[in-house]
């Protein structure tokens, strides 16, 4: 790497999130992007052939969850430490709708997603006024409130025993309802749709404004943008995607546990997003895949220190690859390519 053409070849700053700026692309680059997308799609479709299907579904759900967090963290510069509220809130709502009304699971998940967006409105409205660590703490506080409600409202949520026997109703197609392999393919379109929505959000003019606010909020305000409203909208959209992921997770597992709204879940998704690389969207997918597979492998291996391993990996990545796994990869590829085209 050392003799690479790096200096001055690019105007990018050494920000972990520089991928955001490269939207106006050359045809060549767009070709590569489509190739990448096709490769990603093939991996998504092939996943349950190589990985135990319920684990594959977990990866897909966590990936979308990490992406939803990345919209806030990578593109608005807001570290939400309470995203479990939306993931878990939706999981409970989805589970309750599925248990009590027996509707096909996409409908239940949609209900859960709407619920997540609904609770995100007041939470977002009250927390976007704060920034940095204060924003993280306020979101954490709200998430803990949701946690205590879920814990105490035992008649509805089952308390810490969780909400059991959530059905996977799907228009009476028995294969999908009983075999996790087929369920994966039934649920995947919703995940992909969510990912596409995330991509659209950050690459729209709206997304550009978010980046502008992230980089220099007073300037964005001076240009006439209503900074707070933009942040609230981004917050609600992010919560919606987190809710979509959480709802599918609940259906896939067939039950909802208190763990979904616990702060450790918020922490885990931040870990995934940072590990994969923030401000890249793809990073969330990579981080989620990595963590879910690692945890699954270690739970079976009989090794005791699961936390030690994930913690060490996190420290190493943050110290050596500040852009995360995907971010570092994309950064080096980007530089190469750019250097190539300029020459």
């Amino acid at each position, binding site marked *: 790497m050392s003799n690479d053409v790096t200096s001055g070849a690019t105007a990018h700053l050494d920000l972990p999130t520089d991928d955001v700026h490269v939207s106006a692309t050359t045809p060549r680059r767009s070709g590569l992007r489509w190739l990448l997308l096709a490769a990603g799609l093939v991996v998504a479709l092939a996943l349950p052939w190589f990985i135990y299907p319920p684990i594959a579904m977990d990866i897909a759900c966590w990936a979308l969850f990490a992406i939803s967090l990345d919209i806030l963290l990578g593109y608005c510069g807001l570290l939400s430490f309470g995203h479990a509220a939306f993931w878990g809130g939706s999981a409970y709502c989805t589970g309750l709708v599925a248990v009590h009304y027996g509707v096909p699971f996409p409908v239940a998940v949609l209900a859960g997603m709407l619920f997540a967006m609904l609770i995100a409105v007041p939470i977002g409205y009250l927390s976007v006024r704060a920034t940095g660590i204060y924003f993280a703490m306020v979101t954490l506080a709200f998430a803990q409130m949701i946690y205590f409600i879920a814990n105490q409202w035992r008649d509805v949520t089952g308390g810490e025993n969780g909400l059991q026997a959530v059905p996977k109703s799907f228009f009476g197609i028995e294969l999908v309802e009983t075999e996790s392999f087929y369920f994966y393919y039934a649920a995947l379109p919703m995940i992909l749709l969510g990912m596409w929505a995330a991509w659209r959000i950050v690459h729209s003019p709206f997304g550009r404004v978010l980046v502008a606010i992230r980089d220099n909020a007073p300037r964005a305000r001076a240009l006439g943008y209503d900074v707070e409203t933009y942040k609230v909208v981004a917050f609600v959209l992010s919560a919606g995607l987190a809710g979509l992921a959480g709802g599918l997770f609940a259906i896939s597992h067939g*039950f909802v546990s*208190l763990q979904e709204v616990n702060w450790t879940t918020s922490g885990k998704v931040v870990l995934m997003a940072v590990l994969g690389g923030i401000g890249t969207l793809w990073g969330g997918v990579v981080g989620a895949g990595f963590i879910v597979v690692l945890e699954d492998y270690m739970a079976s291996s009989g090794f005791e220190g699961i936390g030690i391993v994930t913690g060490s990996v996190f420290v190493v990545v943050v110290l050596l690859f500040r852009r995360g796994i995907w971010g570092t990869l994309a950064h080096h590829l980007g530089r190469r390519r750019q250097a190539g085209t300029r020459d």
Partner: protein
Amino acid sequence: MKRKAAVSAAVLSAGALLLSACGQGGPGSDGGAISDDKLVLAVLNDQSGVYKDLSGPNSVKAVEMAIADFEEKHGDDAVTSEIEVVSADHQNEPDVANTKAQELYDRELADVILDVPTSSAALAVANQAKTKQKLFINVGAATTELTGEQCNKYTFHWAYDTYMLANGTGAAVTKEGGKNWQIIYPDYAFGQDMENSFTAAVEAAGGTVGGTIPTPFPNDNFATFLTKAAAKNPDVIGTMQAGGDLVNLVKQFNEAGLADKGIELAVGLMFITDIHSLGVEQFAGTSFTDAWYWNMDEESRAWADRFLEETGTRPSFAHAANYSAATQYLEAVQRAGTDDADAVVGELEGLEVDDVFLRNGEIRAEDHRVIHDAYLARVKSPEDVTEDWDYEEIVTTIPAEEAFRPVEESGCSM
């Protein structure tokens, strides 16, 4: 052009994959008496966290002992010579337990899952057992829901539950003269269940519960709650705390010198490993209900000696119960001549059985609660301890039919 080509390539490959996916059938089945030509016993429990000592890896050892004994007993007549143990760590997280249970049934071809402490994890696994129509014998969890409203045909509950704990300690201590109670409990599902059950048991035995005091969970400082309870001058303070909270509460109970004021401490749920970790002097004189104690008679002691050789430690009741559950499962398969889940359930239901763990045991057909004699135990004073792990004295034996919740109260319909 390139873009178009890439898109069509993606669509094509996606289509191809989906098509081939449709060709893949469901899980394979064969006609043999033993599915996949082997019996697989899976132990799913906490291999790394707070419940590691009371069950954990040593329960896997106990199941291995059961298999060795089974093979020795039946020799060439055994229904199969291929018996395996697999284990997984659920980290006390219901999500992990849920996924691992599916994986054990589907990928590891487990015929039965054993143990599973933590109520929420156990309920999740019970649901998987019902869906997959494979056996689940719970040992480590306390919730009565497993044999109550959430019971199912493939789930059995082997060792203990909240009703048995409360009923044992509450009734027995009251009958011994501890009429006036104060109850301190952690304010979450387990604690609330225990508080309700204890109050009912104490009142049924002719005692009174003067007050119940909820505490946060988890919690370190119990001084105010203990002072409040002691101010009412009760005969007994009952604590429903467990694990680390229990250890803190007992320390503070001793520091406040409440035992010297004539107040007895009764504990809802305690494992011998708790006594071992805090030291017998801290718990001396405490009453609690035990499902089994390694030194309670010759038969138990003989087994505990073998366990000590295998593992270097004495067994908790969960270890013995896992051994018992694995043994009775294997014997049921032997009698049925097949590992077909329905046939094995048929063999187990209504079975009256005695083994190293189960005394006067019966596997109730109605709710799959396994009932057996339970024991009111008291922690010895340090000067009475004659050897390592010699911590308990059995005060009374609670007959099986009185120890557990009556069938008619279970609310179970299979």
